[in-house]
């Protein structure tokens, strides 16, 4: 059964053309009466200026590192409290996020990850891809990308999933399932950013799908059982993936990347697949 996805983000909002958050936010429409907590980030802007709001649900704007904790407080009065934050919020507020997961707070946390600090002008984050160029890694990031969803999984919480704005049905189903579970629920949403990754603003969904089809982003969920979902099920067989190079060359942030580095990235992606497949066997 296909889920009806509404549009709680109102027309005239100030998101950039092709903004992945403005696509992703639609999935919140499958929740009944959510209260949404938003720390500093692109969504602070998208949500609109006082006294107006571009979102159809109550929005609590909070300091950068505080979002899961404020949501925890709200959850003492209400169900369906959702944190919507970026990878920046997950970096600076990592202790807050981890503490909330450890307490098994009754909240949903969605990290809409565009793989850099975009709102301040494309600075490298913990989830920025190895070799991706940002304004603070102008020749390409030298450090590894951290796997936030797997780290959250290791907190032994009831629900953890990855998702992509390229596959909204898969994402909305995960949000809906999360909404039916109590305790700490975490969804890591892959959100390609046109100005940040240097691709045309008409191609957000296309790039997001290339990430999944090349195996660079893996769709999975854990709800007591760990499994691959949606398009990633077909990518288990490496032969059925599109070449990773195609995904990398479509983005300006990897411009000039050497063939050796492409091979290295392919190796890194294979390692993540090995890990995910062994988790699938273990859980």
């Amino acid at each position, binding site marked *: 059964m296909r889920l009806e996805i509404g549009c709680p983000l109102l027309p005239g909002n100030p998101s950039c053309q092709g903004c992945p958050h403005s696509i992703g936010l639609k999935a919140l429409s499958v929740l009944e*009466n*959510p*209260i949404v*907590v938003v720390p500093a980030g692109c969504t*602070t*802007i998208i*949500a*609109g*200026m*006082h006294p107006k*709001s571009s*979102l*159809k*649900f*109550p*929005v*609590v*704007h*909070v*300091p950068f*590192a*505080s979002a899961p*904790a*404020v*949501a*925890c*407080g*709200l*959850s*003492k*009065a*209400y169900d*369906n409290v959702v944190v919507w934050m970026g990878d920046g919020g997950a970096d600076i507020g990592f*202790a*807050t996020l*981890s*503490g*909330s997961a*450890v*307490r098994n707070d009754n909240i949903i946390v969605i990290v809409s990850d565009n793989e850099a600090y975009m709102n301040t002008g494309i600075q490298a984050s913990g989830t920025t891809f190895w070799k991706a160029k940002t304004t603070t890694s102008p020749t390409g990031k030298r450090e590894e990308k951290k796997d936030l969803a797997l780290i959250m999984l290791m907190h032994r919480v009831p629900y953890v999933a990855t998702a992509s704005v390229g596959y909204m049905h898969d994402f909305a189903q995960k949000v809906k399932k999360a909404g039916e579970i109590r305790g700490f629920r975490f969804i890591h949403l892959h959100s390609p950013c046109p100005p940040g990754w240097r691709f045309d603003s008409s191609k957000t969904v296309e790039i997001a799908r290339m990430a999944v089809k090349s195996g660079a982003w893996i769709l999975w969920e854990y709800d007591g059982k760990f499994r691959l979902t949606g398009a990633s099920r077909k990518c288990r067989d490496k032969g059925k993936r599109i070449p990773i190079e195609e995904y990398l060359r479509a983005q300006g942030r990897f411009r000039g990347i050497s063939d050796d580095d492409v091979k290295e990235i392919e190796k890194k992606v294979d390692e993540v697949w090995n890990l995910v497949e062994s988790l699938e066997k273990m859980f």
Partner: protein
Amino acid sequence: MKTILTGNYAVAEAVKLSRVKVIAAYPITPQTTIVERLAEMVESGEIDAEFVRVESEHSALAVVYGSSLAGLRSFTATSSHGLLYMYEMCWWVSNARIPLVMAVVTRTIGPPWNIHTDHTDILTLRDSGWIISMAENAQEALDLTIQGFKISERVNLPFVVGLDAFVVSHTAEVVDVPEQDLVDSFLPERKQAYVISPDDPIAVGNIAQNDVTMRLRYDMAKDMERSKEVIREVGDEFEKKFGRKYGLVEHYMTEDADYVVVMSGAWCGDAKEAVDVLRSRGIPIGLLKLTYLRPFPKEELKELEDREVLVVDRSFSMGHRGILGLEVGNVLDCKNVIAGLCGVDMGVEDFVEMFNRFVRGEIEDVEWWLK
């Protein structure tokens, strides 16, 4: 009921009597026993509240901000480095006009590590829009906490109760713990300017135009000023119900005094004894205790205009004077002694010597009382 309690346990009793619903705190010496006692009360069902074990002070205040937004009466407590770690949230809570109460056990800021009393930590809140009170003893810590909820919820500004590390926090004294019924008749159900609820799609804290933001600060400033009247009213009502008088300041033998010492916090007890010693020698000296530092009791201080005034500070603003010296100095001429920083012990004999020198005109404009 009269019983023996430390300042920290007295605060915990006040939180229970105030029917708080959510408590979130992170342990830090010397605040820890407040949190431990409250956790115990929640576990044993002595209090119908949730205790949230947070991973930091920043999250402690963030959690109670969230629960307060939802309309639940909430409490946290911290000290020194914990207060500095949650500093961002302190401003967020006051600017959002959310009423709640926090206890700060005043402690030295490092390095070097030092767990003893100093008022510089709590005074970092002075520009932030928190109502700041200082308890002299365990009884005041209890009484101010209960009054704090009422005052905070009437003016929509957060309220902090300061109590000196160890001198108040860990010293057991006789405390009169009021009956629950009486507290219930004093402290009504929680009220606040706005509540976040799922049915009302409002946005809180979103970007606002500059002139709107400035208007919000102006409203806060007016309400902070208005809180003086509320503090006096609530203090009078508290006296009628519980028999103990509260206001912005406490006068001790100031009426006929030519010399007045202005101080705040636990050491006022020792200073009052020193005033007694000088009085017994016929010296017309008195003490004005600042129970509240925000709002600042300007009017009460102005009444001292024609007296000789000495401010004794347990805090210092680098490059200027003691923080209270600065504040009082804005209202009237005063001398300023910086003493007891970093927990350096100050006893009755120190104050006798200091006040004698003050009366003889020997105290400099700003003088450090080094031991």
